[in-house]
C-alpha cells in the first residue's frame, strides 16, 4: 500500500509554515475518515513528529537579524 504524504522531509528541516501546513493537512485527512487504518496511523505518527518540531522551533526561537545594506545603529537608550 502506498502511504501518500506520510514520508517527507525531516520535520526539523522544514520551514515553519510548510510544516504547519502539512500538519493541518494531516489533521484534515484524519478527520475526513476516508483513510485506511494503517495509513491513518502512519499519518498520525508523521503529524506528531511535525508537531514536536514546530513546538521546539517556537520554544527555542531567537530572532536573527541580518543587515544586508548599511550598519544598524544600536537602539537608542530612550527607546529601551
Amino acid at each position, binding site marked *: 500500500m502506498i502511504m501518500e504524504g506520510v514520508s517527507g522531509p525531516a520535520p526539523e528541516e522544514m520551514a*515553519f509554515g510548510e510544516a*504547519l501546513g502539512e500538519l493541518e493537512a494531516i489533521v484534515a485527512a484524519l478527520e475526513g475518515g476516508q483513510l485506511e*487504518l494503517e495509513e491513518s496511523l502512519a499519518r*498520525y505518527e508523521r503529524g506528531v513528529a511535525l*508537531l514536536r518540531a514546530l513546538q521546539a522551533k*517556537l520554544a527555542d526561537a531567537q530572532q536573527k537579524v541580518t543587515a*544586508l545594506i548599511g550598519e544598524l545603529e544600536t537602539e537608542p537608550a530612550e527607546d529601551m
Partner: protein
Amino acid sequence: MDRERAVSVSEAMRAAKRALETITLTVVGEVSEFSDKPGYRAAYFTVADADASMSCLMWRDAYTASGVSLRCGMLVEMRGQFSAYAPKGRMQFVVRKLTLAGEGRLRLQVAETARRLEAEGLLRDDRKRPLPAYPMRIGVVTSPRGKAVHDVIRTLSRRYPIAEVLVAGVPVEGADAVPAIVDGVRAVVQAGAEVVLLVRGGGSYEDLMPFNDESLARAVAASPVPVVSGIGHEPDTTIADLVADVRASTPTAAAEAAAPAVSELTGRLDKLSRLLARALEHRVRHAEHRVRLLATRPLFCEVDPLLGQAGQALDAAARALGRAIPLGLARDAERLRYAHEGLTRVGPRIVERGTDAAGRLAARLGDLSPLAILGRGYAVCFAPDGSTVVRSVSEVSEGAKVEVRVHDGRLGCMVETVEEGR
C-alpha cells in the same frame, strides 16, 4: 535737436513688444483668473499677489505638457517672458514652463502621480496580494538609524522570533533616497525575504516625498513578494502606501501585520495537537465499530438475507402476474359482452331473413322433387337392390322381384313377362 519723428501706433506697439520680449523671468504667484476654452489655442490666466497682477497666456502644447490643471487660488511658478498684444495694447506674460509652487505644489504633484498610477490600475484592490502566513524571512527596508527600524525588530522579536529579519538600511530622505530604497527592496527580496516591510518614522510632508516618487511606486508594485508599508504616522498617506499590498499606519503596525504572534501560534499548535489525537482516536473507534457491525451482520448468522433479494424479486413478479391476469380476463369479458350484445341485436334479423329464404327454396325444391311427379300418376321401378332405378327391360328378367314406388308408398312385385318395345 530735431523734433523726434512721430510713429504710428503699430510701430509703437512693435517697439514695446521688442523691448518686453527681452525680459525673461521666473515668477511665483497665485492664479486669480483662469480661462481655458476648448477652441482656444492658448490658456489665458491672471496671476497676482497682494499688490499686482499680470495677464498670462500659455500656448496649448506647452500647457498640456506641463501636466498642471490650473485652478483659481493655486500657487504657481512660471518661467517665461513678457510680450505685447498690439490689437488690444495689452502687455502679457507668455509662460513657457509652469509648475506648482510650495507644499501645495507637492500635494498636487502627488495627486497627479496617484491619478496616473490609478489610471494604469496599479492601485487596484485586486492587485493586492495576501501576506504569507508564516514567513521565514522578513525584509525590512528603512533607515538604519532612528526609531523605526528598532520598533520593527522589537515587535518581530516579541511576536515572531522564528523568522530571520533581513534589514536594508537606506537613506529615506533627500535626493539619494529613491534609488537607495528601490535597491533595498531588491536586495531583501534577493536574499529570500517572503514579505518586505517598507517603513519610516514620521516627518514633514516634504520629508516623506521619496515615498511619493513614481519610480519607487513602480518598484513596489513590481516586487515579486508582498510589500507592507508603514510610513510616517497617520494620517499621512504616501503613494507607496497606496501601491503596497498592505498599508499599515506605523512601522510597528507594519511588523504586526507581517508576522503572527507566537502566543497565537502556540495556541494553534495546541489545538492541532488535540485535533490530531482526537482524529486518530475517532478513526480507530470507527474501524472497531465497523468490525463489530460486520461481525453481527445477518450475513454471518443466517442464510436468508443472502437470498433475500432474489426472493423479493420473485414476490414482486408474482404480485405483478396476479395483477396482470385478472386484468386480461376482465378485458376479454368486456369484449365478449359487447359481442354478445351485438349478436343479440343482429341475430333475430339474420334468422328472419333465413326463414324467408328457406321457404322460397323449399317451394322450389317441392317443384323439382320426383315425389311430386309421382303424385301426378307416375311410378318408378327399382331393381331388387332397392336403389337402382330400372330403366330398361334388359335390366330385369322374368321372375325377378322389383319394387315399384308410387307417390304414397311402394309395391313389391314379381316380373311375370319381359317384353321389348313400346
